[in-house]
């Protein structure tokens, strides 16, 4: 019996090549799309999931209150880890950590490597596995460092024991390799290439020992029997007790949420990447739905061809259940072929997709889970898409179809039309969303930042860059490639160093506004292209100018009426405001400019900014800069980044949404058009007699094309009407996430509508014209 169905299915496929192609191709695109998305989703969900203690490991961030609003920071005071461990019974292990990039050199081979200074508990919290050495003795020596296998290979090559070797770090210090651990899984929120005892970093930094500075990433492991709620409550109150302040609360953030649910708003967890994961899962399902709709449409549209077979089979004694079973198996066979085709597509497209989303996904067809999942999609698609046609086709009465009566298609017609409207509604919503996401991205990227991010290069300060700053600057400018050089203790795009306990002439920071502190060299403002709106900039001699400060406009506003110049600010020492700088954006590119206080001091700068000459090519500029840096700071590799790249990177998730929505809009339209194309073909076929009669009676070709296209355009029109409010609602919601946003403009709907109509027209008119120019004699003879 089954064999009989399969045979019939294949012969039907072969006989109706066009129809089969449309069906398989459409479904294959749908499955490909969904598979790509699901691969991405799987990757996102896999973050941190390979660590063993999923129910016990927590990160400890803090909520801090400023200006009535709770902000969330990834930092805790140094002694807090130890305090939790000793004072809260449920906390079994705790580790402070500090992330650093270190320069490892072995002979001529030097690599920059990110890792963490940690407490010993870190090893057990993350169940790190030792390949060389062991967990117990790893931190016995204060000069110890444990590196990953990968790092060991990079430094010493394969098959060389690394343990016991002395490693030169930052060209100044020696570390003793006390162990080699297995590489961390690919997807972890806190990647490390090495760990070393925390004290090696904190050493003589007195401020790391008190509760005044929040700087450490703290991890804890709860004992297996500990109750999360009770421990969390104790963690919250412990920090208050220790700081004597009730405006900072530490809390537990479970390892399961690190990657996907790490957004906090006003002290509440509000999602994060999980939102994108959900969004794209829904999109994947929608695309599959469109593909299945195609299938239903095409199957029922050609029902007349199958009606006879249904009649005969019923007369031969087939019950309805058997026919339903037969049609669903046919759909399943088609779906199966489509999924084979989609595997082919996936092979070709996955590398491109990886480029697009900047991931390294693999098809992994050897993983049983992937196979099962793909089969699952196939099965669901086949059954879902086959169900309606199966019920519809099997309902034909043999007497009617065998007599050659036209199958009454009343209900099927409406359903088919409804499905087409559904498909196009989805496609149009995609088009509108794509346009709006793009507009919003452009809107933000073109926002006046208050500084000039173009032609701006950022270098990490290391080695002798500060001592030799004057010479370096002079040499750089002499090359002609660089017009200005400035130092800053904080990245220009970052939040960083801040505080709120200030008083000034005529007032204090009573509103408890968070003020950001910047320690800069005198030329930083010019380098960054920031604008001085009042007063003067810093003198080059920072010692002479050490009590002068600059403030931004929003800070000046806080200080009240009148010019801020000459006002005094008390931050332990007294400073005088000598200039006001135009507000500029950092950290949150969608938000407002927070007030900034600039000091004329670059002794502890972390970043060197270079404004380059736009007339000289980028590679030329870079090689000139490199030459200067090699001369004055030879021990360190030349590493740089462009500020505008870093700026763009801030929009990664938006950009991903943008790119993917473009892709999926395109595919949704493509699939919908395949369906429309097939449907138009069958309508034309069905109405061939009518067309013949009309032509004999004198209808023109254009009249007939109009006649055939009109119905479809009505459907697309209806789809536009439905899509507009849906798209508006969805996008208004999405834009609601951004403080700095575009308004939705009516003409976007017009454009999307026109695009949809044009696409539908092109699709349908091909068939309509073909039907209209056919010789009426042929169609009339067939009766």
């Amino acid at each position, binding site marked *: 019996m089954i064999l009989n169905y399969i045979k019939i299915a294949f012969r039907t496929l072969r006989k109706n090549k066009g129809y089969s192609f449309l069906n398989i191709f459409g479904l294959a695109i749908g499955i490909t799309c969904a598979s790509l998305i699901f691969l991405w989703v799987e990757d996102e969900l896999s973050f941190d999931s390979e660590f063993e203690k999923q129910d016990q490991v927590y990160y400890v961030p803090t909520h801090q209150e400023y200006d009535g609003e709770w902000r969330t920071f990834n930092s805790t005071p140094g002694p807090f880890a130890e305090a939790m461990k000793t004072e809260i019974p449920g906390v079994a292990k705790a580790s402070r950590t500090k992330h650093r990039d270190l320069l490892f050199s072995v002979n001529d081979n030097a690599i920059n490597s990110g890792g963490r200074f940690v407490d010993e508990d870190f090893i057990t919290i993350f169940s790190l596995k030792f390949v060389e050495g062991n967990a117990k003795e790893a931190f016995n020596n204060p000069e110890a460092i444990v590196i990953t296998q990968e790092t060991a290979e990079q430094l010493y090559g394969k098959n060389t024991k690394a343990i016991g070797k002395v490693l030169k770090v930052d060209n100044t210090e020696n570390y003793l390799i006390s162990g080699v651990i297995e590489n961390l899984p690919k997807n972890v929120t806190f990647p490390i290439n090495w760990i070393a005892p925390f004290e090696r970093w904190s050493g003589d930094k007195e401020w790391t020992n008190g509760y005044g500075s929040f700087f450490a990433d703290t991890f804890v492991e709860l004992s297996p029997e500990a109750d999360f709620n009770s421990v969390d409550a104790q963690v919250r109150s412990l920090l208050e007790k220790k700081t004597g302040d009730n405006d900072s609360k530490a809390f537990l953030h479970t390892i399961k949420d690190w990657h996907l649910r790490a957004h906090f708003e006003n002290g509440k967890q509000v999602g994060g990447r999980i939102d994108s994961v959900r969004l794209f899962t829904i999109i994947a399902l929608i695309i599959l739905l469109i593909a299945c709709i195609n299938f239903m449409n095409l199957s029922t549209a050609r029902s007349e061809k199958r009606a006879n077979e249904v009649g005969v089979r019923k007369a*031969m004694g087939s019950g309805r259940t058997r026919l339903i079973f037969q049609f669903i198996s046919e759909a399943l066979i088609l779906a199966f072929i489509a999924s084979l085709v989609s595997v082919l597509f996936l092979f070709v497209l996955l590398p491109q997709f990886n480029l697009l989303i900047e991931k390294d996904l693999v098809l992994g067809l050897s993983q049983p889970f992937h196979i099962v999942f793909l089969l699952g999609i196939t099965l669901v698609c086949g059954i879902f898409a086959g169900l309606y046609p199966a019920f519809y086709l099997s309902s034909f009465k043999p007497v009617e179809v065998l007599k050659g009566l036209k199958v009454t298609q009343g209900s099927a017609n409406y359903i088919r039309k409804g499905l087409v409207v559904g498909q196009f509604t989805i496609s149009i919503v995609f088009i509108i969303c794509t346009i709006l996401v793009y507009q919003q991205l452009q809107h933000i990227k073109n926002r006046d930042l208050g500084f000039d991010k173009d032609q701006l290069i950022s270098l990490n300060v290391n080695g002798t860059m500060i001592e030799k700053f004057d010479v370096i600057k002079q040499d750089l400018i002499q090359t002609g490639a660089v017009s200005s050089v400035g130092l800053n203790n904080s990245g220009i795009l970052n939040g960083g160093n801040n505080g709120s306990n200030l008083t000034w002439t005529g007032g204090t920071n009573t509103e408890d506004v968070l003020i950001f502190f910047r320690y800069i060299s005198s030329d930083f403002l010019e380098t960054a292209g920031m604008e001085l709106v009042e007063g003067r900039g810093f003198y080059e001699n920072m010692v002479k100018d050490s009590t002068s400060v600059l403030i931004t406009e929003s800070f000046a506003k806080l200080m009240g009426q009148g010019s801020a110049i000459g006002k005094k600010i008390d931050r332990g020492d007294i400073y005088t405001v000598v200039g006001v700088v135009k507000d500029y954006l950092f950290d949150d590119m969608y938000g407002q400019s927070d007030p900034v206080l600039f000091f004329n001091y670059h002794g502890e700068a972390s970043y060197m900014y270079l404004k380059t000459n736009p007339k000289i090519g980028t590679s030329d500029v870079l090689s000139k800069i490199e030459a200067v840096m090699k001369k004055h700071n030879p021990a360190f590799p030349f590493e740089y980044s462009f500020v505008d790249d870093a700026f763009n990177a801030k929009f990664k998730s938006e950009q991903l949404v943008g790119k993917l929505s473009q892709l999926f809009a395109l595919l949704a339209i493509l699939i919908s058009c395949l369906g429309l194309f097939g449907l138009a073909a069958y309508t034309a076929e069905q109405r061939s007699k009518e067309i013949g009669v009309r032509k004999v009676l004198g209808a023109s070709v254009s009249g007939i094309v109009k006649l055939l296209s009109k119905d479809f355009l009505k459907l697309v029109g209806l789809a536009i009407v439905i899509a507009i409010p849906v798209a508006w609602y969805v996008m208004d919601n999405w834009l609601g996430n951004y403080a700095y946003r575009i308004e939705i403009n009516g003409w976007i709907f017009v454009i999307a509508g026109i695009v949809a109509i044009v696409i539908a027209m092109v699709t349908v008119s091909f068939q309509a014209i073909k039907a209209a120019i056919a010789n009426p004699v042929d169609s009339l003879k067939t009766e």
Partner: protein
Amino acid sequence: MKNILVSLNEATRTVNSGSNKVTLLDTINLNVEEGEFISLMGPSGSGKSTLLNCIGMLDNFTGGGYTFLGEPVHSMKEKNRSKLYKEYIGFVFQAYHLIDELTVYENIETPLLYKNIKSSERKAMVADMLDRFNIVGKKDLFPIQLSGGQQQLVGIARALIGQPKLILADEPTGNLNSKQSEEIMELFAQLNKEGVTIIQATHSESNAAYGSRIINLLDGKIV
């Protein structure tokens, strides 16, 4: 006395066409004994096909009684009815109605599939039938590759494969030329001799003459 196969008692079939009630079959009384060969005659629209379809249980009478082999069909559930006709009735159509996607062999085999007959048994039965109709050489051809007469031969073979008691043939030669139709009618006569009961609808006097009894229909009534 022979078994009564079909017994119609004031059987009526009406349909609603718009607001009008149209009577297709009007109080038909008919007994068909096993072994009969009945020819239904009458002009187009007289109700021949409707009567055949109703007897074949593809369609239902709307009034009166219908008994098949002593079983009251009119009060049966759909499921039992289909079991009944699957078992005892074979159809032959004017337009043959072979399934285009199946070969001759597979077409003949189809009714057996619906009767859940085992594969080995099916093979034997189909082979017998092919042999009997002299179409062994054509078993792998598709209907489209056959002439009309050959297609109808396959149609009859398909109707016979289930070993029915009753063959219902609606204008079986309507699409054939005279030579082909003569062959088909000879075949029917032969089958009838072998004990198969046949009811055929036909326009042709000469075809009707093959039957053992002729029933004339006009406007849904036996005249």
